[in-house]
């Protein structure tokens, strides 16, 4: 009975994690501009990663493998948002600005000392 329950939990966690991972990737392809793509990447970074690792943890049971999975989770939990922030920050500094939604004006940051580079496709 308990085994069935654990198997069910693992199944739900892994499948939903896989679902969110794919959703994030679809968002990365589908969204129209860079700034919205950042948010799509953040979906698979947070939900997909947490759910998949949690599923693997429950599957492995109490062992050192679980500990390693948790360590990987913590590392991704810290570095994931940090690198997202770094990409966004670099894009902002290089002069890329998000298109504002209808009726909104962005709080334009004061012009940075850097010569705002053209975002030429590389």
């Amino acid at each position, binding site marked *: 009975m308990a085994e069935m329950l654990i198997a069910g939990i693992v199944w739900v966690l892994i499948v939903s994690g896989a679902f969110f991972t794919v959703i994030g990737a679809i968002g990365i392809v589908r969204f129209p501009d860079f700034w919205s*793509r950042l948010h799509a990447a953040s979906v698979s970074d947070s939900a997909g990663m947490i759910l998949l690792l949690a599923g693997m943890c429950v599957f492995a049971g109490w062992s050192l493998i679980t500990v390693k999975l948790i360590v990987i989770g913590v590392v991704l939990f810290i570095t994931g948002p940090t690198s997202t922030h*770094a990409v966004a920050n670099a894009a902002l500094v290089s002069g890329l600005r998000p298109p504002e939604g209808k009726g909104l004006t962005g709080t334009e940051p004061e012009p940075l000392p850097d010569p705002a580079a053209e975002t030429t496709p590389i």
Partner: protein
Amino acid sequence: MFVLATIAVFAAMLLVLYRLYAGPTLYDRVLAVNAFGTHTVLLIGIMGFLSGRPEFLDIALLYALINFVGTIAILKFFRYRAIGDVLHASAEDEGET
């Protein structure tokens, strides 16, 4: 179940690769590389379970670290065209405090 997850992560990686190929700006590409790295970490973990050799997790952890450092290095290089000290950059940083 793990097979399903493997297929899903593979599909996600292919989609991200499309963005890496098409992404109009440099930052789209860096974003795609970073997402690809996260997916690789997950894939290594899942494959470890699938093949019954969970000691691959060490490699997954290593890959997560390298992915982070690589992203930061690429960003810094394309910002300053150098990975060391840049004179006007450090002056700017210390001026802000």
